């Protein structure tokens, strides 16, 4: 029996031939006792391979894997929250810087004189500026506090 025929019979038993090849092999086996015997041996081997005992992961191993992945997911969540908080604080800082510049200009420049006549004294604007500063500090404190809480939960 040639090596090519042996290969075809083995692959037929393994279910690795395309339908046309498999049909040709089957047709040949009906007329060739030697090849039919060889094909039977390959089928027997393949069936035994599929029936080998199946080792399974222990519960402890699965639990360790789950714990490791959950730790990774928690790190990712924390990292995403930190990025978002940082982006917000940076944007807020830039906003405050621009607003401060406008306020200083309003309180000290020619515009202040015009606004004073229609919107009130510069002291009111200064008070508004202070309140805004206090508010921004409070927001930052809340954000930092939440982060500390999250870190405490993870560790």
């Amino acid at each position: 029996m040639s090596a090519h025929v042996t290969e075809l019979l083995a692959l037929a038993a393994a279910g690795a031939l395309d339908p046309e090849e498999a049909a040709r092999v089957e047709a040949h086996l009906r007329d060739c006792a030697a090849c039919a015997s060889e094909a039977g041996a390959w089928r027997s081997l393949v069936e035994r391979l599929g029936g080998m005992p199946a080792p399974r992961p222990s519960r402890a191993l699965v639990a360790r894997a789950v714990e490791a992945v959950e730790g990774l997911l928690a790190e990712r969540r924390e990292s995403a929250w930190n990025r978002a908080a940082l982006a917000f604080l940076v944007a807020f800082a830039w906003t405050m810087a621009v607003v401060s510049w406008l306020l200083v200009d309003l309180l000290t420049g020619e515009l202040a004189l015009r606004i004073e006549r229609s919107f009130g004294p510069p002291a009111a604007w200064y008070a508004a500026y202070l309140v805004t500063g206090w508010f921004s500090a409070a927001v930052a404190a809340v954000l930092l506090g939440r982060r500390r809480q999250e870190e405490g939960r993870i560790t």
Partner: protein
Amino acid sequence: MDPDRDDAARLRRGDPAGLAGLMGRHQDRLFRYLLRLLGEETVAEDAFQQTWLRVAERIGRYDAARPFGPWLFAVARNLALDHLRRHRPESLDEIDEPEAPGGVDTDPLAHAVARQQSARLSDVVAGLAPRDREVLSLRFEEDLALSQLAETLGVPMPTAKARLYRALARLRERLLATAPAEAWR
């Protein structure tokens, strides 16, 4: 709906429930594959854990239009082959010489299955080269079709077919050498 796709989407959003679903469906076959490929239980356990970590890290790269199983096995395979290259750089195709008959069996897989009816077959499979063990496990234990086998191995279908035949031929050759009267003759 494909539950794997749903769970992969959950995992991508950082939901641990997605991981639970994927592990529940794939953990047994993944562990069996790693054990066949790596041959040592402790190494396979480490690779098992590393595989799920890698899955969680790279789930964003998973194409949900394709089945999850081959992608998972490809991730596991890369990790396992990296390990084999680091620890056995000589050749992934080299045959592991099995213990002498009656000797102490140091391969946990072979030790576990030696008590079963197909002890001889398992012993001989465990003694094959990693690449041979891998292709046999993927085709006959994990029941991957030839196209999935080729995708997992990262080779064209004709190459996958050639590897499959080579593994079968080597297995049968060894079986005939150790037990010529058995049915695989």
